[in-house]
């Protein structure tokens, strides 16, 4: 009895590992293919059976892309937008969340409910009037449009408030008795305590700004303003037969996200999990 049970358990284990191995392979193939193709001549990219490690890696692809498209410019634009949006988001969200969580004022609940309600409304439903507003303000084809669009999200306020709710009120009371102002409490007590939440918000905002597609597509039509996503898209549709170069540019566009992701991965997973449970 125990023997067959044991055998059954081992068989299940083997099956699970086999399944997972196949799944992991399927997940990784596209990246391996991307990396491998980025070092090939166009004519070799589709050779079949494929050569996983190119015999004569063509490193020139990684030199050429910088001159064929203003890739440096695109990366600079995207990095600039992502950093500014993330900083503004962290600052204004944690600031507002402090009041929503630890201060008492009239209209607090109504205001917070308003924030929550808008999280569920798809941005696509009001992107047209938003564009008209931005154009009226003379912000079409400026980076400012993207910054203003992304920097004041209700989601950030919600996420930070959830975290602050877990910080005991007595901590703030004690600090008040010690003579610290509310701004002092926010800066000296809440911010240092909320590092995990700030990290989660950082990675969410950075990655979503870096990867945003529709926003820059609507607002940034001049080449020198474009972000890496729409710049890369432009390159792919213009030079659709430059397989090697397209893959090299793709590799370059993914690298910053890989770095941020691997560095802050722990917080990302925690963030997804906690927003999921509390949402």
């Amino acid at each position, binding site marked *: 009895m125990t023997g067959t049970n044991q055998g059954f358990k081992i068989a299940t284990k083997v099956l699970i590992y086999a399944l997972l191995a196949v799944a992991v392979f399927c997940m990784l193939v596209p990246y391996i293919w991307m990396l491998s193709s980025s070092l090939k001549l166009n004519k070799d990219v589709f050779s079949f059976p494929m050569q996983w490690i190119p015999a004569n890696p063509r490193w020139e692809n990684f030199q050429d892309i910088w001159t064929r498209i203003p890739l440096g410019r695109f990366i600079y634009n995207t990095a600039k937008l992502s950093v500014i949006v993330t900083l503004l988001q962290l600052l204004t969200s944690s600031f507002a969340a402090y009041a929503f969580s630890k201060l008492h004022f009239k209209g607090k609940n109504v205001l917070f409910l308003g924030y929550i309600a*808008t999280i569920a409304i798809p941005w696509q439903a*009001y*992107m047209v*009037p938003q564009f008209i507003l931005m154009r009226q303000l003379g912000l079409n084809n400026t980076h400012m449009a993207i910054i203003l669009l992304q920097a004041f999200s209700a989601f950030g306020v919600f996420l930070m408030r959830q975290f602050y709710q877990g910080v005991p009120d007595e901590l703030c009371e004690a600090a008040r008795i010690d003579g610290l102002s509310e701004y002092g409490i926010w800066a000296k007590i809440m911010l240092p305590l909320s590092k995990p939440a700030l990290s989660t918000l950082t990675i969410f905002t950075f990655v979503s700004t870096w990867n945003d597609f529709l926003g820059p597509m609507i607002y940034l039509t001049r080449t020198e303003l474009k972000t890496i996503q729409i710049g890369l898209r432009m390159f*792919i549709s213009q030079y659709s037969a430059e397989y090697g170069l397209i893959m090299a540019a793709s590799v370059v566009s993914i690298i910053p996200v890989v770095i941020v992701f691997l560095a802050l991965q722990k917080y990302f*997973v925690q963030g*997804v999990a906690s927003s*999921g449970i509390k949402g």
Partner: protein
Amino acid sequence: MQNETVLRPKQAPKRLLSKGVRDHLVAYSFIAPNFIGFAIFTLVPMFFAFVLAFVKWDGSNPMEFIGFDNFTRLIKDTTFHKALWNTIVYTVGVVPFTMAVALALAILLNQKIIARNFMRTVFFFPYVASLVAVAAVWNFIFSPTMGPVNNILHLITGVPIEDLPRWAADKQWAMFTVILFTVWKNMGYYMVIYLAGLQGINPELYEAAELDGANAWRRFRNVTVPQLAPTTFFVLMILVINSFKVYDIFINLFAGADNQLNDSTRVMVYQIYNTAFRSLDYGYASAMAIVLFLLVLGITIVQFRGEKKYGQ
């Protein structure tokens, strides 16, 4: 909450402003930086979306109030119907497929397994990888004549390459291709949500079930599924809403340099984008946006009702 303000000892010396007023000003100063931006760039456009839906406007000539004309026009607009239909088909394909795969992965990766964290990272990564880049790779790998997928299928099945599916370029297979891509790209995100849900289940429930002689399937059916109900409702809601908002995936998998989609691949947000930013028909585009909003709102309400009824 209001009691507390009243109860707080009024020992602060009288200054220019009373303590209550000063407390309020401080609180509002915390909210203001976020709220002002939020109000101008989110609340105001939201409000105007409803106004715009009832006017005819090209952005330069004077606005013209036309009542429900935009909506009656929608009822007859077969292109919009096609976009709505495609969006629904896409949603119906993506939602159950993603949920099943994400839950299966979460259960597998919740056990003590070698390289568990590495595997979680591998499954999660496509969610953060830049869409334009991974869509380009997919289009190459699934390229009808040159791509490795069809070459391998040709080797295995012996079917001539011309007779194999042309994937993204094929009217019949386009929807399947985009659904497969979406599941591949996003399942890791939902896997993480499910993992958190699984970790919240009390292990004693499983021990009790095992003592009662429940096999693995019964434990899944009678412990995991009911315990995960709140997580499942959340995942369901986010998945449906995200599927209705889809645009960038379709453009990157299907559109050429002109960013146009055809009848078998157009979706609602594409239709809104084109009507507003290409045809400059802002009023009509807003009417479509209102339909999108109402659909998402309706789904949210139905799911909240469902959660109350079937969730704990």
